[in-house]
């Protein structure tokens, strides 16, 4: 067994994690993934037998908050596991080696594990000019294209890699594009959010490890396990929404009582994420619970759906604070004026026709 690569569980055991903790972790993971009790056995089995999954994690046009979120995975054992169940062979934020030594690390993975390694991407890829993002003298696009050629699957972390995020907001000066728009032929999992919730990130990794296949994705490439429900449908303020109890201005009486933030521009009704269920940072809170409306950070193009404190986006080209209602009302008034004008003109120009009454008593024939 000289080439024996220790399984994830062996690995943990070696690190002093007890069987009990290990099973507890598997159960938590199963719950996150929405699995039945039988799923737990599957996870346990997978971890007991599989070698650590080699992972190359690239940073392109990003802010590193996806990495930051990742290390916040909350279940105590998760932090440890996230570091160890995969073999994080290239991760610029955490890795010891720099420069040439760093580059060698991911080249080694590509050589040693063709078809087996996962490419994880944090950040978008500039297309206007490749030189807008270079690492080691090569462009993001060159690096990515080479790395995905022999990978097993691609995980796009966060809104940047999934949809371009803030740098792709109008006018997108660098031509920033998400991963799925610049590569083809490999499955891409869009783990949305700005950043994604730590436990969602951990959950996706566990899914890949456990079932050895891509999780079910929604129409926008997001894993259904975490993105099939609107924030609005799992929001604990929902009862206030249905009751028509709204915060009318920040820190007003309604805000102090936890009313619904709909009228402060909450995008919960148009946003798919697990914030209401898993919540943030070990279930401490989520934006709405802390008084701020959802800004829709797990949706494509959410930056251009603003202003944030308005229920619907601005109608482009009509200036700030111009909503569909303002345009509509304007058109309505114009229409009313038009109608009035038309009525007056009618009475003038068709005067003859209108006053062309049949003579009193003359017979209008009908058959």
């Amino acid at each position: 067994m000289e080439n024996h690569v220790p399984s994830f569980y062996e690995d943990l055991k070696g690190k002093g994690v007890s069987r009990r903790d290990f099973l507890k972790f598997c159960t938590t993971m199963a719950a996150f993934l929405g699995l039945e009790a039988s799923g737990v056995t599957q996870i346990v089995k997978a971890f007991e037998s599989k070698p650590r999954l080699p992972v190359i994690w690239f940073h392109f046009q990003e802010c590193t908050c996806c990495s930051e979120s990742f290390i916040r995975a909350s279940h105590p054992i998760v932090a440890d596991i996230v570091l160890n169940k995969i073999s994080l062979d290239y991760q610029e934020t955490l890795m010891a080696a720099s420069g040439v030594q760093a580059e060698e690390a991911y080249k080694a993975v590509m050589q040693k594990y063709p078809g087996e390694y996962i490419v994880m991407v944090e950040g978008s890829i500039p297309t206007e000019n490749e030189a807008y993002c270079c690492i080691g003298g090569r462009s993001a696009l060159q690096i990515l294209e080479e790395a995905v050629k022999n990978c097993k699957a691609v995980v796009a972390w966060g809104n940047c890699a999934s949809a371009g995020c803030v740098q792709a907001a109008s006018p997108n000066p660098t031509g920033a594009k998400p991963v799925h728009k610049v590569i083809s032929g490999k499955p891409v999992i869009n783990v949305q959010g700005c950043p994604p919730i730590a436990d969602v990130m951990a959950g996706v990794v566990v899914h890949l490890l456990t079932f050895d296949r891509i999780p079910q994705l929604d129409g926008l490439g997001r894993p259904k396990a975490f993105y099939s429900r609107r924030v609005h449908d799992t929001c604990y303020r929902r009862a206030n929404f249905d009751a028509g109890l709204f915060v009318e201005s920040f820190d007003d009486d309604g805000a102090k009582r936890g009313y619904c933030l709909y009228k402060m521009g909450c995008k919960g009704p148009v946003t798919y994420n697990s914030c209401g269920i898993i919540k943030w940072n070990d279930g401490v809170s989520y934006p709405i619970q802390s008084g701020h409306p959802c800004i829709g950070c797990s949706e494509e193009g959410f930056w251009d759906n603003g202003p944030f404190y308005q229920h619907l986006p601005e109608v482009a080209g009509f200036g700030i604070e111009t909503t569909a209602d303002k345009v509509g009302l304007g058109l309505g008034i114009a229409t009313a004026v038009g109608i009035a004008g038309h009525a007056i003109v009618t009475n003038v120009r068709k005067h003859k026709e209108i006053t062309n009454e049949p003579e009193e008593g003359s017979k209008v024939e009908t058959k």
Partner: protein
Amino acid sequence: MRNRSVPLREVHVWEMPVRVYHWINALCITTLCITGYIIGDPPALMKGTEASFNYWFGTVRFIHFISAFLFFFNFIFRTYWGFVGNEFSRWYNFIPLKKSQWQEMGDVIKVDILQLTNKKIDSIGHNSLASFIYFLTFLIFLLQCLTGFGMYSAMSSSFLPKVFAWIVPFLGGDMHVRQLHHILMWGFILFAMIHVYLVFYHDYIERRGVTSSMIGGWKFIEEDVIERHDQNEEAETKKK
């Protein structure tokens, strides 16, 4: 200029199903616009109370959804009637495929909208411009149903809304769908304003009883118009 003492004949233009459809439709649209507007910008009706004792906003949405279903099926029915109803309700009136329809549209614009001349428009059912506008509104109906049910698919697990689930990713996310749905509401409002005005306008000018036609079904049409209409019909059938 129309001679007021020409002989008129009663024509049964709108069959019962069309009339019933029309008023259900008008009712639904009115309800949907009012409830929709409230959904988009709810008034601050309630304060200082607990959620558990209230459900008014939920009710407004409920009414919106009920009306939406009614509106949808009513619309489906009208589409069906476009294939089986009388000649005035047939679909081919609405889609301007014939040159004569385009000509008439030009005439209507000249006569009724710009009021440049006082030529007489012959149509018995809708005039061509009206038909075309209705056709466009049917497309808006369709789009409104697609966007509405698309959004609704996230809130419902029943079959019908689920059929529309693809709409949301297709249009690039819920926000865009919602914005479109909201903008289209204004399309309905503008249409209704102009539509109602023009119905009254035609009644006022033409005196064919157009307003009541949507209640009783009958219009009063000039004999010569009917004759020309019949001749045209014959010519058409002969061609074939």
